[in-house]
């Protein structure tokens, strides 16, 4: 995979890992989609956070998930809200409800369909996109 196959132009903020989501991005860079899962009650949570909102336990694992999901909602971005997006677009932004991870939803893009082809209920599968930093970013393809 080359940089030219990236869904969005270079220059957008790349994942800026903080103490909470470092583990998430480290697994992504190994092309593993792992979601925080409570060791006490088994509840999945995302975005990464220190406590389980279901039972308040602070013990967790990074649990691998199937990497499939359903488009929960979406939008088509036209306006360049970031300098890197000037002259680019329109492009889609989706919220994907993950399979096998309770109610976890992730923001992403569906890379292989026109912006206006995305619809609520569309089944998608994980697509790993190489980043300029040598890591990987999870995006989606139509299932």
């Amino acid at each position, binding site marked *: 995979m080359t940089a030219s196959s990236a869904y969005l132009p270079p220059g957008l903020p790349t994942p800026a890992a903080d103490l909470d989501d470092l583990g998430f991005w480290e697994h992504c860079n190994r092309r593993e989609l792992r979601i925080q899962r409570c060791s006490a009650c088994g509840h999945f949570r995302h975005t990464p956070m220190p406590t389980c909102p279901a039972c308040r336990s602070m013990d967790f694992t990074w649990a691998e998930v199937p990497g499939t999901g359903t488009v929960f909602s979406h939008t088509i971005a036209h306006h360049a809200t*970031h300098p890197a997006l000037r002259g680019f677009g329109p492009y889609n932004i989706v919220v994907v409800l993950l399979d096998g991870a309770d109610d976890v939803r992730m923001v992403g893009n569906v890379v292989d369909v026109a912006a206006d082809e995305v619809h609520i209920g569309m089944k998608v599968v994980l697509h790993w996109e190489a980043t300029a930093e040598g890591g990987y970013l999870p995006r989606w393809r139509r299932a």
Partner: protein
Amino acid sequence: MGAHAMRNAAAVVGVGHTSFGRLPGQTPYDLGAWALREALADAGLKHTDIDGLIVSRVPDYQRFGEMLGINPRYTAITPGQGRMSGASIQMAAMAIAAGMANVVALVYGNDGRSVGEKYGGENDRYGGGDGGLWFPYGMTSPGAAHAIMFQRHAELYGTTSEQMAAVSVAFRKHASMTPHAVMRNPITVEDHQNSRFIVEPLHLLDYCLINDGGVALIVTSAERARDMAKKPVYIRGFGQGTELAGSNLPPDDFWHAPMASAAKDCFRMADVTHADMDALMVYDNFTPTVLFSLEGAGFCPIGESGRWVQGGRLELGGEFPTNTSGGHLSESYMQGWALNVEAVRQLRGETGQRQVKDAKLVFYCCAAPLCTSIIYGSDAQ
């Protein structure tokens, strides 16, 4: 003290604001000080009468007090988020009822236009959302989050962009009668539909403005309020509700649950009904928020807001004139503060061409992860 004891315990006795638009060279402190001067003059009070101070988006309460040379008994600061305007006014009423202060100045200053605030980019986490997990996907604005929410509403209930246009058209009509409004040229549904997409299905005319300005309100006890320069406007009821759990993404329920809770407590405290409201002030960062708020607050059934706002219902002369000064879409992006000022002016009968005849009760609400509602009354019944 129960909720009923808070009814009409506090009143707004002074309102003021800067001009709105592009005000280069003015910091939030300058804008706040200007607005406060106006509000104190409106109330017939002096800076030295202030014994409570709540600032929002003015970065530091200490510096603000330092530059005004005041030492209030009670002081607080709230984050510069729109949801905090209503929350701050509620804090003022509670501080007064608790005896911690008797004349509370609420001061807001916003230099977002002049400093090039875009409400996107790396600093924008929409409150609790983890921006680091949004931005690589080109989701860099609150508008995108609201577009995603609206798309769900459209899927579930058939709500359309043309229905949102009714909100924009109504508020612009009101702004055309508001001398201090930033955008005063009337628009049509066609203008709305022809305006460019920002994040589809939201058009440019579904968006609030970004401009500079400051707003201040003076709140005091009902007893003290009787001696002020102008007729007091009573804070008759208020309520709050939150949906913080899971709030890193737009909510599934369009904030119906917390807004319903905020409205229920507010109406119960005020002991009035929806039908009693003479005007509404509904936080309008984006047009869909108005639809979601009207549903959550109980003005129309869940899912029916799109149809409900058609036919001029929100326009002056309609059933519930809403955002009679033009709101964030057309008057000024003062994050709820100017809507509360407009509520006060309507109840004083000061709004000229856009005056709602014999207005006695006005409802304010803001839908967000923290929802607020306030009912203002022209008398202390």
